[in-house]
């Protein structure tokens, strides 16, 4: 450790140095393009039916073809369906499910957080006790129990994950709003004649946007992973529907001979999660630079 002493005073130097290699504008540009990957993936997900070369549900070739064989880019699965087409459709479902849960979480958690943060006192106490109650339970396990109780299915999964996910946003938004509410600018606004509603909407809520956007974008990856895990456990769509987690789980038996059949859907999840995490970091950098 003694070797590293001279550098210690400069802990952030690593990041700063990369910022120096790239002029500030180039770094900004790079961040914007990485954040733009979110749009690219959304576009791919939207166009999945167009991009998919085959029907994902029907056998279209020899079973168990390796990637590239017979013109199947990612090979075929155990009964001869096109892995690429199944992955594309699965990607569409995963991606939009993740976005839906985030939008739902941001709306529910945002409203609760803004209300709790604006009013403070008893309102804050009650809302945050409820939120903390949810946060005190392990989210994925609780989601599994909820889906299991409701019965497996896409809508139920979305519902279950949304139920365990909004408390994170309520906490974040409430924290930001509470911190802002202690700033004099809120009192200044009250003195200027702004009512509670206007104070909440114009002087408090916008301040929680950066933190929420950063969390939400970093969450895309987390949600893709969580949803894939639920699907892997058999809590998603029933059998023939293409789904990334379930396709990996159902084909685990092929792992040792035809590794691509369970692995390709997993790699698709990896790509989605990576895009989510990278874009989340890029968006955070952009927000911090402002």
């Amino acid at each position, binding site marked *: 450790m003694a070797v590293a002493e*001279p550098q210690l005073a*400069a*802990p952030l130097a690593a990041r700063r140095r990369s*910022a120096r290699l790239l002029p500030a504008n180039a770094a900004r540009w790079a961040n914007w393009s990485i954040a733009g990957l979110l749009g690219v993936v959304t576009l791919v997900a939207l166009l999945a039916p167009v991009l998919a070369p085959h029907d994902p549900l029907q056998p279209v070739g020899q079973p168990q073809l390796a990637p590239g064989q017979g013109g199947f880019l990612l090979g075929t699965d155990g009964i001869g369906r096109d892995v690429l087409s199944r992955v594309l459709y699965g990607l569409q479902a995963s991606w939009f499910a993740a976005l839906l849960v985030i939008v739902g979480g941001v709306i529910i958690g945002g409203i609760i957080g803004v209300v709790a943060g604006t009013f403070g006192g008893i309102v804050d106490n009650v809302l945050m006790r409820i939120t903390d109650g949810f946060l005190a339970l392990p989210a994925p396990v609780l989601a599994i129990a909820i889906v299991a109780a409701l019965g497996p299915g896409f809508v139920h999964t979305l519902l279950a994950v949304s139920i365990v996910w909004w408390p994170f946003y309520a906490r974040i938004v409430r924290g930001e709003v509470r911190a802002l509410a202690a700033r004099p600018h809120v009192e200044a606004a009250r*003195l*200027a*004649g702004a009512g509670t509603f206007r104070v909440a909407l114009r*002087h408090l809520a916008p301040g929680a946007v950066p933190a929420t956007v950063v969390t939400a974008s970093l969450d895309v990856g987390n949600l893709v992973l969580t949803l894939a895990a639920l699907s892997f456990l058999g809590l998603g769509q029933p059998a023939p529907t293409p789904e990334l987690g379930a396709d990996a789980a159902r084909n685990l038996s092929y792992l040792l001979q035809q590794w691509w059949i369970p692995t390709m859907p997993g790699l698709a999840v990896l790509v989605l999660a990576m895009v989510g995490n990278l874009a989340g970091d890029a968006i955070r950098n952009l927000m911090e630079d402002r």
Partner: protein
Amino acid sequence: MRHVSSGEEEAGAAPPHPDVSFSPARPGTVAEVENLAVTFRRGNRRIHAVRGVSLDIRPGEILGLVGESGSGKSVLGMSLLGLLPEDTLEHTSGRVAVAGKDMLHGSADLRRRVRKEHLGSVFQDPMTSLNPTMRVGRQVIEAAGSTEEAVRLLRAVGISDAERRMSSFPHELSGGLRQRVMIAMAVAGNPSLVIADEPTTALDVMVQSQVLTLLRSLVDEIGCSFLLITHDLGVAAQVADRIAVMYAGRLAESGPTDTVLRSAAHPYSLGLMRSRLSLTSPRTGTLSTLRGEVPSPVAPPPGCPFQPRCDLATDDCTQLLPDPVPVIPGHLSACVLPAEVVRARRPAPDAGEQDAGEQDAGGQDAPQADAADPESAVPAAADAPGAASAVWVRQIRRTFRVKAGRGRRKDLQALREIDLDVAAGESVAIVGESGSGKSTLLRVMAGLERADHGEVVLGGSTRPQMVFQDAGASLTPWMTVGALIDERLRGEGLSRAERQERVVAALAQVGLPAEVAQARSRQLSGGQRQRVALARATVIPPQVLLCDEPTSALDVSLAAGVLNLIGRLRRQLGMSVVFVTHDLSVARVVGDRIAVMYLGNIVELGPAERVVSQPAHPYTKALLSAVPEAGAAPMVLTGEPASPLAPPSGCAFHPRCPLADDACADSELRLRPVRLRTAHDRAVACLKPELI
């Protein structure tokens, strides 16, 4: 230093002045700075923090390094400590030596050893500068080496129960005690130099004077040198042997304290002294200010950095970067003009006119409303509302429940019964230390805080408006200035265009151009933000303007401008002003009357000039003597300030009062301000009011 050539005339017989000598390690200095330049990188901009400064620190002296924010004074201090932040450092040149060791380019280990053996340091905020999770004792032992030595040091800095304090955590100590702990660590191991960066800025004025007295006595006892970095000329004047004034990364002037104070040779030093308020500043007319603002450290002007703000500037000043040259031996000034010329130029009586905000001041020669005859507007007393009272505060009490550690809750008695009547058009300054309840009183008047008891009666129909200490924080960061001012015009039944017009007019009234309406708070400077806050408060003129320390976060040269502006707005718009401040010299200038608060009570109330010149309450006296002034020996109150969590019985001031006797501690005693028999416009809450 390149200007050494200009010292030719003294090259012969006269020994070269230490400041212009080249010899690397000479006796008679503990630290040398030679032609130091430091540049930082922030994003893709270069911040030229220090641009060629030379300075010596001699054994056993206190050198006061004075400058406003951005002057580079703290960077100079960190260079001496060898602790410049390496990750943002773009460039350094010159030489910094402590005990003959190179603190600029020496190895990390060499610099560390110099810090350990030869240096001590005290920083501004003792709360964050002490490790919050480590007991005070361990932190002192790290510097002192042994428990015995640590206890001895804590005693030496005036901590009474040192052994017990050793096991306290920093958050369990008061601000003054924390700073004493920092000082104990700084003087551990008998350093040859202690660097104190704004050591008293975060402290109350009474604690500040205690700490300054301690510093002076430590220097006299231990014989170490102190570099006292401060923005407050008064603080430096009180204890420093020599003063060095920095401006925009350059040394403007340096010399013995008396010489610099009595016969400053640099226009900036002069301007700084004139715009600094003291207990003897004239109360009539506008305060003298420095026009413009400090130049950007990103693109400093090529010539004299002060030239854009200097009344005496010539064409030469825009070309040449003047180096400090001796006026007389030992007194340097970085101005091309002869000292006599600088000193001869008295400030114009309408110096405030030059300030951007004062261009349209109709009444620059009108004295402050009642300054000529302070008594005229003052109501006899506060027991009945005056005929035209703007706000009448009656028997206000306010107690907060606060966490007091270990799950217990305690009552914090912020206001313990306040009566105050502010006449229409009158200005009242409320003075007190932290914990006195002065800000709570203002917030109750504003309606931002409810009172547990009593009432606030407003004379008019408009709600009072308030200007906050931190103007930047009082402006919603993501809203434009225009939208913020416009907010007050909503519901007035005005059209969009009319509202826009009013916004521009309000900005013009505070001396800001219309374009500012499109800006957001972070794009503005500190002075501009406070002007925007004032524009917002006065776009519909309120009957009462409440000001919560609006200038205490501003540099001296800007603060005077804002005070002028508040005075002018008050006259033009016929507002009453209630102005909360910790600074008696500010209160004396802005207030027709002064109310002195201590632990939730008003202890003295009366015409400003008379309260300051003839204080009647012992606390007012103590407060006055704690105001840092050159040469004035402060009357230092012993002990810690009492806490509003447990106000002493009877007169809350009695434990620290030199006049107190048993009657003052009587728990049945309910002291209220009582009119003095000798002066009906003054009231004092004391059993022994002594009017001199």
